[in-house]
């Protein structure tokens, strides 16, 4: 059975996720370069990994590894790392500024960032190599969590790596798919219908798969924590792009855009009513 933290308080998770969305909206008023919607769909997934699943302080002090393969969603990773004291408030204040060190995509070498991502289709192979090394070279119990987007599941390199993960028998690899159903150009089911079904494809590549509501922290936690499997594992989290802000939800324009001051006020007001 996989190692895990003792407990995961769902009410606390809900409160944290609300704060994370607010923090991202605050930062959106400082700079225009922000993938808010793609970060909002992954809030509960990323929070659950850091707060519920990973052991120890992320980075060198944790036996476990976290990769944000959907690098454009890293705003949620940054605010989580800020909350747990790995990144400083100053880092977030200087996001995308010439005097800061954080940009729109995670950079290896920054605190808590364990690989450079942002170009889609890289994280699965990196995570496979890391999981293989932890488990079969070092003979340790470190788990590797990688959050991928549905868009990058269209990259051939992701499937190459998934085949190899199954071939290598890495059972310490957990891929969390932020399946928000949208990519830059529009709704995935319309622009890329043959992409579906996902679950059967992944299972056919030698993986175990579970599917949950990706905004249900309890469901995410229960599907992964203490699991005991014989294959690499993918959790498909069905999510809503822009989750929590009505005008952002499922609207492709918000893949990249930052809210105006009025839109910001509306978003903050709406978030106060979200139950998560």
């Amino acid at each position: 059975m996989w190692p895990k933290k003792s407990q995961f308080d769902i009410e606390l998770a809900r409160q944290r996720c609300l704060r994370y969305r607010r923090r991202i909206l605050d930062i959106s008023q400082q700079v225009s370069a922000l993938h808010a919607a793609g970060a909002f769909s992954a809030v509960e997934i990323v929070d659950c990994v850091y707060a519920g699943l990973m052991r120890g302080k992320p980075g060198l002090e944790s036996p476990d590894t976290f990769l944000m393969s959907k690098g454009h969603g890293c705003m949620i990773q940054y605010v989580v790392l800020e909350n747990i004291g790995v990144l400083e408030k100053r880092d977030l204040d200087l996001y995308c500024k010439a005097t800061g060190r954080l940009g729109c995509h995670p950079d290896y070498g920054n605190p808590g960032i364990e690989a450079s991502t942002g170009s889609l289709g890289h994280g699965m192979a990196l995570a496979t190599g890391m999981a293989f090394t932890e488990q079969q070279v070092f003979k340790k119990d470190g788990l590797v969590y990688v959050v991928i987007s549905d868009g990058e599941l269209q990259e051939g390199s992701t499937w190459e790596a998934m085949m190899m993960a199954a071939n290598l028998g890495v059972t310490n690899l957990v891929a969390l798919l932020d399946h928000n159903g949208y990519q830059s150009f529009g709704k995935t089911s319309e622009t890329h219908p043959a992409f579906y079904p996902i679950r059967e494809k992944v299972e056919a590549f030698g993986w175990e798969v579970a599917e949950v509501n990706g905004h249900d922290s309890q469901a995410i936690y229960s599907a992964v924590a203490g699991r005991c499997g014989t294959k690499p594992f993918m959790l498909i989290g069905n999510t809503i792009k822009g989750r929590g802000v009505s005008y952002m939800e499922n609207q492709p324009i918000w893949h990249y855009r930052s809210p105006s001051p009025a839109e910001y006020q509306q978003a903050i007001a709406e978030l106060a009513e979200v139950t998560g």
Partner: protein
Amino acid sequence: MRNAFADVIFELGQEDSRICALVADISPAGSMVKFREQFPERFVNTGVAEQAMIGIAAGMALKGMRPFCYTIATFSLYRPFEMIRVDLCYQNLPVTVIGMGAGVVYSTLGGTHHSMEDVAVASAIPNMTVLAPCDPEEMRLMTQWCATESIGPVYMRLGKAGEPDLTADAIQPFQVGKLRYIKRGTEVAVISYGTTVKMAKEVALRLEALGKSVSVLSCHTIKPVDRPGVEEVLATHSRVVIIEEHVPHGGLGSRVREIAWESRSECSLDCFSLRDEFIHCYGSHDELLMAHGMSVDSVIDRLADQ
């Protein structure tokens, strides 16, 4: 070279548990089988999936390993180019990418299997070191350096098999980053790397027969090139000849021209390379080189004309 590389990796693997070998369905030579049998947890065959080979190697390097990725040059460098750029070079990881059979060595396999511009492509990426040994001994020393001293990514360009020993009588030892005199003369210097150092030595013999005093140098480290070393060669010879199995642009010839211009050299400079063309020709390696206008005779003829 191929068998010798497998021997070296096996020896290094015995000494250092961080050494691992990743291949992409390349048929393993003798010692590669030994490596796989003795260190199964450090041998990964990704099959015909070169992007996975580089990405997995990067993941292993991020955990502290020192991987070597090995397949035919065109598939080890071009196919997974963006993985090499982002995963290896951007993150500056100690992964060595071996490009086997570089140039037009796979002379009967056609343009799909030729890597005529690999030095230019690999050299263009920040953090990348580009090496090309001319014989098994240079390859052995170079591989040891990659395994133990290199702090970032390396592209190592290899020939195929059967290369003669070209440096046993070299007057200077091998050192990464240093231009190496194999022999030293006073008038003409012939600089080459990898597969064409043999041709450079033959050209030198012919020039000597014509009464010239000739230096022969192995420029095994193409990036970063030994700039002071090149300046010294330009300053101490009246004529410098570059021979490389690579397209005319982005390789050693281009680099030496830049240095010659920037150092206001008055030395005359002749560059011999592959043509900037895909040639649909099949035959021996020498015949392919000849189709590109590269042979000892054609070099001597052109030098005599000028």
